């Protein structure tokens, strides 16, 4: 369930913490395992992480549900996380989100029928001077306009 490659990555995180504190690596371990399991977590993958880190399953479960970056439902290969907090809102984020939803034919938290893209409204991503902005997987895109959004999204394959 956890590949050798993923274990290696998790081990590198474990090494950062004091001996017997390997559960400090749980947040990253969940992300790593999520990434190689279709970009989402389920009870089995969470338990596998807990077992690997020698911590109770419920403790890993709590972390997996407390933090926003973990997906428990189906998401796209690309998750567009659109900031709708204050600076982005003042710069027209709501209209741009509506445009994106129209363009893709999905509402927020839904996945396009080809499984490629899902859209999520998120809180401030710490890039307010580049508002309006969104994040796609690891990358930030700032100073968005309708044209820019169209170009970015059309290039997702």
């Amino acid at each position, binding site marked *: 369930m956890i590949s050798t490659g993923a274990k290696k990555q998790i081990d590198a995180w474990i090494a*950062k*913490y*004091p001996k017997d*504190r390997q*559960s*400090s*690596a*749980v*947040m*990253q371990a*969940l*992300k790593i395992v999520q990434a190689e399991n279709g970009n989402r977590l389920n009870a089995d993958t969470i338990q596998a992480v807990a077992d690997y*880190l020698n*911590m109770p399953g419920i*403790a890993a479960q*709590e*972390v997996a549900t*407390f*933090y*926003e*970056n*973990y997906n428990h439902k189906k998401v796209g290969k690309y998750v567009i*996380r659109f900031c*709708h*907090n*204050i*600076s982005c*809102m*003042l*710069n027209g984020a709501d209209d741009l989100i509506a445009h994106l939803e129209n363009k893709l034919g999905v509402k927020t938290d839904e996945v396009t029928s080809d499984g490629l893209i899902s859209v999520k409204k*998120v*809180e*401030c*991503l*710490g*890039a*307010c*001077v*580049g*508002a309006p902005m969104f*994040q796609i997987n*690891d*990358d*930030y895109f700032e100073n968005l306009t309708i044209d820019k959004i169209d170009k970015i999204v059309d290039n997702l394959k």
Partner: protein
Amino acid sequence: MNEVCFKNLTKDQCYSLKTYEASGGYSVWRKILKGQLTPEHIIDELKVSGLRGRGGAGFPTGLKWSFMPRHSDGQKYVVCNSDEGEPGTCKDRDILRFNPHAVIEGMAIGGFVMNASVGYNYIRGEFMAPFYRFEDALKEAYEAGLLGQNINNSSVNFDLYTHLGAGAYICGEETALLESIEGKKGQPRFKPPFPANVGLFGKSTTINNTESFASVPEIINRGGQWFADVGVENSGGCKLFSVSGHVKNPANFEVPMGTPFKDLLKMAGGMRDGAQLKAVIPGGSSTPVLTAEVAMSMTMDYDGIEKAGSMLGAGSVIIMDESTCMVAVLTRLAHFYYDESCGQCTPCREGTGWLYRVLKRIIDGNGKQGDIDLLLGVQDKIMGNTICALGDAAAMPVESFLRNFRKEFEYYIKHGKSMVKG
């Protein structure tokens, strides 16, 4: 402008070790390794400098560092707070991207002063580009022999690691952040005990903001008095202000404390499309909103902003023009705090829900007579009654929006639509 954290901003590869060292970087750290600086000297310089915590609370950094029981036995930690999630705030991201070595040197100096041989930089989970940039800088520093065990035979030890968050505003609160590094839900701890006594993994710990750490090397280099003189009384030095919203050129500006707000607005290109300024949130979404009139005569320092009726916070200046519907803005902020409450204390958990639901029904055209009093009553019950400051942060905007823009709320309740947008 741009003299401390942003000093190398316009240089080629401003983030590289080479650029950093060429402008005097790591010279304080090298002096420490040669035994030429004492912890007492550094703490004194920081006290003279007037540096106050840049994470929002504004606690004097020199004083904080002096609270660490540096002579006690056992492991101690320094932790950098790069969780940056307060709406309107985006300066630490730029420090990590453009001047990561200043953060590393600042943390190393802190480690030496507080006798902490290990540091963690907690970077919010979404900041992947800044994370990789910081990791690259760490690698450079290790390869140059600036970090590790018995560095340069100095008997000084300092190891520095990153920890990545996973999307929770509350982890910016320092004790929630410690829980998070321990691999738990980010729920703030009761204080006391304070982290200086019982912190990370139960050990003495000091937490500072990214900008606070990044300011330290330059302060020690040029002297505390120099830094103090850049600023004004009670607000030493310069500070990064993130100016966002309805301005022509939104950006981060590192300017002397005490800079008039109207000058800062000018630096950001002034209002967009010749619109009129309506309101300003000067320190991030948790700080009270001000009217244009009050803002235009305020100076950007702790006392100046307090006198105007708000707080400097993290220096996140959100500019709103006349087209802004204040009911819509407050509703969005209320949703944020409701979403981000960790749920531990009843006044915060229930109160943020109430605030959001009442505002939502107003925005949906279903506001009731008495809703304004209801909002004021709920925010009053939250204020001062919670474990951490998120409760107050949720309450304060409500009070200030209603006080300064009450008419707009009354109009919305009465007519079921916005006074501004129609």
